[in-house]
């Protein structure tokens, strides 16, 4: 009888029920909410489903799926989980895959895919879009100042503030280099806010613009030649690399992907970068980033601060874009719809879609999507430049 009792007690002790903490419970609840938003509300499901499932996996107690058993913590795990004599392949499967995040391989490969999917045509036909993309980085610097005020170190403040760029890979890339211990909350905040753009941006856009401004119909864009599209990624990369060399890993991959797309002689490579490779990296990146949100290390007051700062950054970035849009509306005597300024935050193409949808609400014949794509892709370059500047300023 005692044997059975001991056996049952042992089974209980080894089960997830005995190991479950309230923090795990909360995070499992968060993952369910994210899954609901992704599946039922269709908020960035391609990102949110893997992230939410990663959160779920990491918070199922006792699985060891994110344990780093190596003594030197090769995969950036918790030293408490190290086991002497362990090989790297004894570590949890998601922890091993996470090396792609720590090493910046995944963010850079995502940029390759983004480049292959991006048509810079709207930007080339309307270069003023670049200024909207620059203005929409305002939130990064506002959040940086507030983070310093709240007592974060300069590196932490820089990593947190980049959430305002609304660019997940850039946020992961910079955080991995400056404040890797904050990777989980920053990546989650960045991707969650990107997913929530349709909820966050419209009230700000409405608040800052008049009905007349929102109804502006923009004129057709000029046709851009194929040669211009081929020259653009090469020359812009060289130009930016000479000004900010630190940004080459990200922008280099972005422009390589774009050259694949535009040169017309490597269609197979372009197709792979856009589809198969990008999808694989999204799965690996999404699940492992989600899996870093372990309840014990994630549920801290500091995380709430990061989430709040991220939202502040996002709001001010939208404000910056819309306000410059209003300035351009005045300068061009009503030819630019200020709503496209909000697309300057780089979440491609979600932010452009929001501008399009808001524009159509006030003028059903309006078609702002292609006009909004200009600031939108400019925002990708802008946030990468902002990240490059912060890295140059605070790298260790």
């Amino acid at each position: 009888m005692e044997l059975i009792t001991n056996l049952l007690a042992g089974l209980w002790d080894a089960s997830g029920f005995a190991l479950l903490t309230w923090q795990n419970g909360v995070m499992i609840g968060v993952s369910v909410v994210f899954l609901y938003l992704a599946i039922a509300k269709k908020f960035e499901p391609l990102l949110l489903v893997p992230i939410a499932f990663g959160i779920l996996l990491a918070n199922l107690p006792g699985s060891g799926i994110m344990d780093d058993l190596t003594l030197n913590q090769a995969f950036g795990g918790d030293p408490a989980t190290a086991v002497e004599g362990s090989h790297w392949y004894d570590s949890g499967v998601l922890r091993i895959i996470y090396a792609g995040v720590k090493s910046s391989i995944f963010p850079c490969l995502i940029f390759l895919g983004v480049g292959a999917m991006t048509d810079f045509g709207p930007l080339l036909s309307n270069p003023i879009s670049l200024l909207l993309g620059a203005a929409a980085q305002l939130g990064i610097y506002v959040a940086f100042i507030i983070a310093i005020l709240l007592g974060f170190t300069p590196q932490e403040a820089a990593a947190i503030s980049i959430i305002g760029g609304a660019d997940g890979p850039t946020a992961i890339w910079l955080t991995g280099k400056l404040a890797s211990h904050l990777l989980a909350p920053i990546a989650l905040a960045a991707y969650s806010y990107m997913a929530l753009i349709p909820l966050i941006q419209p009230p700000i856009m409405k608040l800052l613009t008049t009905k007349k401004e929102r109804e502006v119909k923009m004129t057709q864009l000029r046709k851009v030649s194929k040669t211009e599209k081929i020259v653009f990624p090469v020359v812009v990369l060289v130009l930016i690399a000479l000004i900010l060399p630190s940004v080459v890993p990200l922008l280099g991959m972005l422009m390589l992907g774009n050259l694949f797309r535009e040169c017309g002689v490597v269609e197979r490579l372009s197709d792979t970068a856009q589809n198969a490779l990008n999808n694989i990296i999204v799965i690996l990146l999404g699940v492992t980033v989600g899996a870093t949100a372990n309840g014990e290390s994630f549920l801290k007051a500091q995380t709430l601060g990061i989430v709040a700062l991220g939202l502040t950054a996002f709001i001010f970035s939208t404000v910056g874009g819309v306000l410059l849009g209003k300035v351009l509306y005045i300068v061009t005597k009503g030819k630019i719809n200020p709503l496209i300024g909000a697309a300057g935050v780089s979440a491609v193409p979600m932010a452009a879609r929001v501008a399009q949808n808001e524009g159509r609400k006030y003028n059903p014949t309006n078609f702002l999507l292609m006009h909004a794509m200009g600031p939108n892709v400019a925002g990708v370059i802008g946030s990468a430049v902002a990240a490059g500047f912060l890295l140059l300023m605070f790298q260790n």
Partner: protein
Amino acid sequence: MKFSPHFLGIFTNIYGSYDAMDIPKALLVALVGFLTVIAVLAIIALFIKFIAFIFSVIEKKNASKVTPVITPINSTPSVPQTNGVALPDNESQGQLELIGVDEATAAMLMALVSYKTEIPLNRLAFRSIRLVEEENK
């Protein structure tokens, strides 16, 4: 082999330590950072304007260099000799015979052919445009 030098952050280089960060310095960093982003993107915008200008000049030069290619179609007598001089952009070559078609319709058809074939109108030679009436079956 020459490796890239490893730089410490500019802030540390200037102030000696990250501990020196305070609000005025944070404001300064934020201002310089924001201006850097605006400046870099403005430079790219100017560069785009520049390459667009270069390409428009090249296109105009190419268009003016075009010499009309006159292909004799069944020893067409109606195609005039242009002596290598390009016709104005809105004119086509040869004498055109309209059969059952008014001038406006003919002009529209010629413009359509030019657009679809991507051959400038002044390089196309139309001999005749005839209305083909289908018999009712």
